[in-house]
């Protein structure tokens, strides 16, 4: 795409942590504008932008922001979820390392809007060198008066941002688990409701948004909500950072306008460029390990937007597209996916802790040709149980990909049944 929006500074800054370089490319103008604007007007622009959360759950950002704004309790906290851990996803890494000030400016606008004094960014432990870059960016922002006391001369606009490190737990990407982890507790999810906008960090109203979501905030304010929405489709505004991996020719991160045909993403020379092996497409795993799998016959004429994807029981999720050519057995693929969930289940609730292991064993018995006649219905029952009985989003979504495969490739499972 010629007109990159959110990745326009990528690779163009000599030192991405430098405020002056960020400003030279249009940075910190949105916050300048925000402090001169009615707060309700900022919320209106976010609403008009039709910006859906970029973390994975795709929750409308405007709705989340209104919820917190209307809560009369203070202090409020701002938290940025930078625990990017969905396999196949590496776009937050790019934002944090190549344009950290765009994330800081988004968090700063949130701090101003919600009159919060403290913001936290929870960065996964594996990104330790990125944490260093981000800290330098925070230090430079403070030196230049964008963080600290009476920011930009606005009396009482006091705001700091603190980095909190993760240490290798996928489940901490779940917002409530993340807040526990920030509080120094073990990073296990909380029971919801209450909504985090009511009872969040230290039991106070809290906003949790993804890195890419925050980075979009200055863009929305700069260009106006309506113009931002118009980059995408009627109901899904803006652009998305997507990550192509697996058997695709051009692996990497790309910015696309929402509403681009999937075929262009996968086969366009500017994007995926087709399969590396030249073999036909086997399937695509969308949005990380917790996301759905799509098969070629489902993908025909598909538009990559939240709405169109949902209409075909697919999802954008984290923006990952793990592309497999037809040399891969989907059942073997699922065994690998389930291996991941065994490792990442936090162990708090039994259906997820044991269910992931049992699913892995059962998928393994299909792969090895040891599955019996009843095992396919057993597998389906287990999928229902683990989804309905698990307490958090992790356990509730481990079955997603398996269910897609059974629905569309039942014959492949059946063919693996021994005697």
């Amino acid at each position, binding site marked *: 795409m010629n007109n990159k929006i959110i990745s326009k500074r990528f690779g163009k800054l000599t030192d991405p942590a430098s405020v002056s370089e960020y400003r030279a490319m249009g940075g910190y103008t949105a916050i300048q504008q925000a402090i001169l604007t009615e707060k309700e007007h900022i919320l209106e622009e976010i609403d008009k932008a039709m910006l859906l959360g970029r973390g994975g759950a795709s929750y409308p950002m405007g709705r989340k922001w209104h919820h917190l704004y209307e809560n009369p309790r203070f202090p409020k906290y701002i938290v940025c979820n930078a625990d990017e851990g969905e396999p196949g996803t590496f776009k937050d*890494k790019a934002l944090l390392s190549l344009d950290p000030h765009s994330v800081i400016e988004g968090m700063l606008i949130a701090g101003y809007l919600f009159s919060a004094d403290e913001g936290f960014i929870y960065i996964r432990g594996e*990104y330790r060198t990125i944490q260093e870059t981000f800290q330098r960016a925070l230090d430079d922002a403070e030196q230049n008066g964008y963080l600290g006391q009476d920011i930009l001369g606005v009396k009482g606009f006091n705001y700091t941002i603190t980095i909190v490190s993760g*240490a290798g*737990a996928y489940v901490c990407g779940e917002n409530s688990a993340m807040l526990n*982890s920030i509080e120094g507790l073990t990073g296990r999810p909380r029971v919801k409701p209450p909504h985090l906008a009511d009872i969040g960090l230290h039991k106070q109203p809290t906003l949790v948004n993804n890195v890419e979501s925050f980075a979009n905030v200055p863009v929305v304010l700069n260009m106006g909500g309506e113009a931002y929405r118009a980059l995408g489709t009627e109901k899904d505004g803006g652009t998305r950072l997507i990550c192509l991996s*697996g058997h695709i020719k051009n692996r990497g991160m790309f910015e696309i306008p929402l509403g681009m045909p999937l075929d262009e993403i996968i086969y366009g020379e500017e994007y995926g460029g087709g399969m590396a092996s030249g073999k036909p497409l086997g399937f695509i795993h969308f949005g990380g390990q917790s996301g759905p799998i799509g098969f070629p016959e489902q993908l025909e004429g598909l538009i990559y937007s939240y709405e169109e994807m949902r209409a075909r029981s697919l999802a954008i999720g984290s923006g990952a597209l793990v592309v497999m050519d037809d040399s891969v057995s989907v059942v073997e693929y699922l065994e690998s996916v389930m291996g991941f969930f065994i490792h990442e289940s936090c162990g708090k609730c039994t259906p997820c802790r044991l269910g992931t292991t049992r699913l892995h064993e059962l998928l393994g018995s299909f792969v090895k040709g040891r599955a019996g006649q009843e095992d396919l219905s057993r597998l389906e029952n287990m999928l229902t149980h683990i989804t309905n009985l698990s307490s958090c989003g992790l356990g509730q979504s481990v079955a997603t990909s398996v269910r897609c495969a059974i629905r569309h490739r039942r014959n492949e499972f059946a063919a693996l049944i021994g005697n």
Partner: protein
Amino acid sequence: MEQKLEIIHKHGGKKENMLAILLELQSISPEGYIEPETAALVAQELGMTKTRVYEIASYYAMLKVKPQAKYVLEVCNSSPCYFSKSDTILHILEQELDVEIGKATADGMFAVHYTPCVGACDIGPVIKIGDMVFGNLDEEKIRTIIGELRAAHVSVLEEVRS
């Protein structure tokens, strides 16, 4: 001891910096883990029980409560890497080092483990050694990496990265 206290105080001795503190303490541990004395010190300085420190240290995959090999080679086995031949990479490592996955070499120099996604799927298959990620691996690159580690030329590794 003093160095450890310095690390704890640098992070304000705050519970919210618990993971950063533990990761940094682990990075200066000669055997790459949270030693019992370290856990006791953290408990004392952060005003919590040693059991709580261990609960946290044993929960997170990057924190270790047992001694580790000098160089831990972590092979990513999440699906984007796994289906980009990370199993081949593992076999080569096992052969070159004469070690099984999950175990350390007899001299305690190397260990090979699996790791979930490190966010480098565009250059898979990858291995992670400390903070460094090595991608687009093949047999030759792996031999180079192991050779350099054996000769303790860690800095030279920069050249074969990515």
